[in-house]
């Protein structure tokens, strides 16, 4: 096994004003410094494990109440209130004792998203602290961190951090004299986007094919290994540490009502300074793209912006004023998703971009539900035909008819995810598709996006 990686990332983590009262730094403390990960640094410099010490002195149900007060919503994509999710876990009764599991979703497969890796790289102890607090609140016996297979070096780093936590008595038997036993296991995935869906992740954790399960039963009733389980994203769990430290009410003051706290936005694509930025929810898209990420590269205009990872319907330049929180983005017809902002400039061919995204979904569909398995493949074939200059105008109506027959007709949201970019691209950039069909050429001047030969 290799040693801890010493090669620095060239991501950007800060922007002017970061760390001030307006833009508090709760999740990215010490990001960019590869020597930031050990427990010693976390405890000395970043108020580490204070939240855990506070939580372990509280009643577990009081910890859940604190998280409910904070109003934090799941950072993985769906935005479900985390405290409410935790309260669904069954409690022990005199007649029945449960084995409960906590699962951390570190699959991070959504194109455009690269935030969880930053937490695991620079602040693994913050994730561990959050997991211990969550484990205590729900009285779990074991925690799992499901990490995507490509992050081998992060698994090695997390293992080292876990060992440090065990040595300090934060994990293992009788944690800090509470009489409660808890440990965390790392589990390495093997390259499947679908395993980011919570029930597919559970199947993969159990050593099966990563196919989503029928719900109900929900994981809180029957999750990992048939026992009650809660699955949270890395960012959600890591945010629990500052919530307990500063108090739920103080955290709820950040961001906007019903969309509280800070979240990590990853900005990629045609921008001058791509990077990960922690911002209070409700920060306008304009600020994220133009102030933090330095605007569109080469002084060009933005044509399309995907606000929260590839599954979200595209925005166009008119939506730059949209406050980036769960509700506002939903009201504009998209999703806040996983916070991965992808910017495409005016020279981007939307037909190619959409085809590239749909190809991804066709490839990653697990094949369980027919509408998604067949529908994504058909969308890919029709788009490929348009891209190759052999499209027909009826194809656009065909695509428009196809998407409502996939969305909401599958077990998991992967089918809906594929429809989001397809529908929005057709609605907002129909003229580009029509130009491709009628002229067999492209309106956009940019270089090709596809590795395979095409009409460009």
């Amino acid at each position, binding site marked *: 096994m*290799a040693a801890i*990686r010493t*090669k620095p*990332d*060239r*991501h*950007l983590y800060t922007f002017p004003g970061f760390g001030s009262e307006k833009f508090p730094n709760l999740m990215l403390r010490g990001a960019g410094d590869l020597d930031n990960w050990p427990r010693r640094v976390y405890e000395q410099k970043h108020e580490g494990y204070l939240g855990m010490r506070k939580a372990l002195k509280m009643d577990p149900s009081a910890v859940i109440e604190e998280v409910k007060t904070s109003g934090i919503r799941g950072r993985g994509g769906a935005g479900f209130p985390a405290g409410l999710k935790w309260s669904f876990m069954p409690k022990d009764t005199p007649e029945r004792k449960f*084995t409960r599991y906590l699962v951390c979703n570190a699959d*991070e*497969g*959504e*194109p*455009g*998203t*690269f935030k*969880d890796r930053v937490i695991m790289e620079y602040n693994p102890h913050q994730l561990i602290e959050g997991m211990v607090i969550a484990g205590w609140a729900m009285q779990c016996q074991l925690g799992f961190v499901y990490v*995507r*297979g*490509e*992050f*081998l*070096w992060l698994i090695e780093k997390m293992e080292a951090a876990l060992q440090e936590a065990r040595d300090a008595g934060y994990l293992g038997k009788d944690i800090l004299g509470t009489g409660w036993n808890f440990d965390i296991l790392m*589990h*390495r*995935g*093997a*390259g*499947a*986007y679908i395993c980011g869906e919570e029930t597919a992740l559970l199947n*993969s*954790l*159990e*050593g*099966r*094919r*990563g196919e989503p399960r029928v719900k109900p039963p929900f994981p809180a009733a029957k999750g990992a*290994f048939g*026992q009650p389980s809660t699955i949270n994203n890395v960012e959600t769990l890591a945010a629990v540490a500052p919530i307990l430290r500063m108090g739920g009410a103080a955290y709820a003051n950040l961001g906007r009502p019903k969309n509280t706290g800070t979240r990590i936005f*990853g900005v*990629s*694509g*045609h921008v001058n300074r*791509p*990077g*990960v930025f922690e911002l209070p929810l409700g920060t306008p898209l304009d600020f994220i793209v133009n102030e933090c990420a330095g605007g569109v590269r080469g002084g060009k205009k933005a044509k399309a912006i995907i606000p929260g990872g*590839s599954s979200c319907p595209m925005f166009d330049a008119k939506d730059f004023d949209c406050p980036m929180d769960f509700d506002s983005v939903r009201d504009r017809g998209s999703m806040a998703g996983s916070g*991965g902002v*992808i910017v495409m400039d005016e020279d*981007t061919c939307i037909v190619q*971009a959409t085809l*590239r*995204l749909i190809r*991804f979904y066709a490839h*990653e569909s*697990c094949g369980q539900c027919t509408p998604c398995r067949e529908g994504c493949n058909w969308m890919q074939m029709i788009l490929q035909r348009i891209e190759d200059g052999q499209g027909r105008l009826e194809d656009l109506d065909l695509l428009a008819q196809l998407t409502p027959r996939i969305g909401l007709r599958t077990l998991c949201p992967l089918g809906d995810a594929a429809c989001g970019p397809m529908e929005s691209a057709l609605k907002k950039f129909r003229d580009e598709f029509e130009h491709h069909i009628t002229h067999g050429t492209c309106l956009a001047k940019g*270089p*090709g*996006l*596809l*590795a395979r030969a095409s009409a460009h």
Partner: protein
Amino acid sequence: MSHPLPPDTGELPLAPGQRLLESSRKELSPEALAEIQAIASRYPDRMAATLPALHIAQREFGFVSLAAMKAVAKALGLPEGHVFGVATFYTMYQKKPVGQYHFQVCTNISCALNGAAPLLQKLCARLGVEAGGPPSADGKWSVEEVECLAGCGTAPCVQVNHDVYDEFVDEKMLEEMIAACQRGEYRPWAH
């Protein structure tokens, strides 16, 4: 196990044009078996060790051949069909041999916007291999087009073997990466 698999001839079709390949190796080493048993004992259920065991088998065999799947099934006492199903579901289990240095180029949206497609073509031409095709004649190089590697902020993202090199990869950096492979600075595949 009493769960029969089709004849072990290397002629088993997976998908049109795709066949499972056999390796000369048939058994896992005692150390690997011990590692698998140790992992299996950590989980509430032995089946959970399927994915880690297949990772170990891939390290031992170089790729996940039919024999590797059978060896994993035997080690964990699981139906061969289960292991076969899992191994063919996940893309990180290579079902055919790869080169000593396996380049995985992300061509998903953020990387594509930053020129991953021409980069992939240049890399293939430079190494004389086809993306997703067999390794070069000397067994040293292979190239694969992969989906998002979560390096969108430093796109284009290229991974060699198990280590991510997520810098802003351009032609110059590709040359540096190839040179580093030739100097033996990167862990070779399956080590």
